[in-house]
């Protein structure tokens, strides 16, 4: 099956810093989503981004489908950004629209 690798596995920032999270995947994809899992375990959709660039406030994401990677940018980080960020993909050619998740990046933002 498709492989999803996220880096770095852990990241510690001071409030106000910027960061870039990376997701590499081993095959072409129909669907790529970024999620934030907050400390209470809730998975929250950030972006649906199988290709191109999107921005939402301090967050933006870029997927370069031809090179099989996606980047999540967090600017001016806040303590509420802490949690685990997951990249999840649905490979092209599949007909079931199911997601395979990476292992996540644990982000800690200190005040």
């Amino acid at each position: 099956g498709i492989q999803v690798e996220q880096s770095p596995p852990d990241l510690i920032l001071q409030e106000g810093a910027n960061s870039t999270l990376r997701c590499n995947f081993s095959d072409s994809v129909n669907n790529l989503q970024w999620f934030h899992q907050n400390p209470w375990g809730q998975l929250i959709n950030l972006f649906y981004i199988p290709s191109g660039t999107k921005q939402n406030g301090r967050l933006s994401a870029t997927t370069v489908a031809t090179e099989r990677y996606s980047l999540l940018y967090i600017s001016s980080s806040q303590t509420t950004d802490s949690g685990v960020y997951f990249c999840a993909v649905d490979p092209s050619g599949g007909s079931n629209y199911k997601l395979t998740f990476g292992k996540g990046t644990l982000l800690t933002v200190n005040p």
Partner: protein
Amino acid sequence: EAGVAQSPRYKIIEKRQSVAFWCNPISGHATLYWYQQILGQGPKLLIQFQNNGVVDDSQLPKDRFSAERLKGVDSTLKIQPAKLEDSAVYLCASSSRDSYRGSGTDTQYFGPGTRLTVL
């Protein structure tokens, strides 16, 4: 619009007991997913429904896990008998994708999860 609802939020049982989880997806969403998330890992798909039919249950341990979505709306996931390694968070998600009708989107929305501890 109400989100995905799950209950209970927490459950503690002893090994070999049975347990059931309930999920109500976003209204009108045709596709429903159950995931298992073990501590420190990403969610892993257990079973996927479209309306009341199973689309994919290839990673469901069928000797002990079962799931149903009888009326194509809410769903239950059961474990019987539970093992220690079943301790995890069980997440339900839904999307509006309806592959039979060729409609909807693939964006998945998750419920708050049920944290299961097997002692």
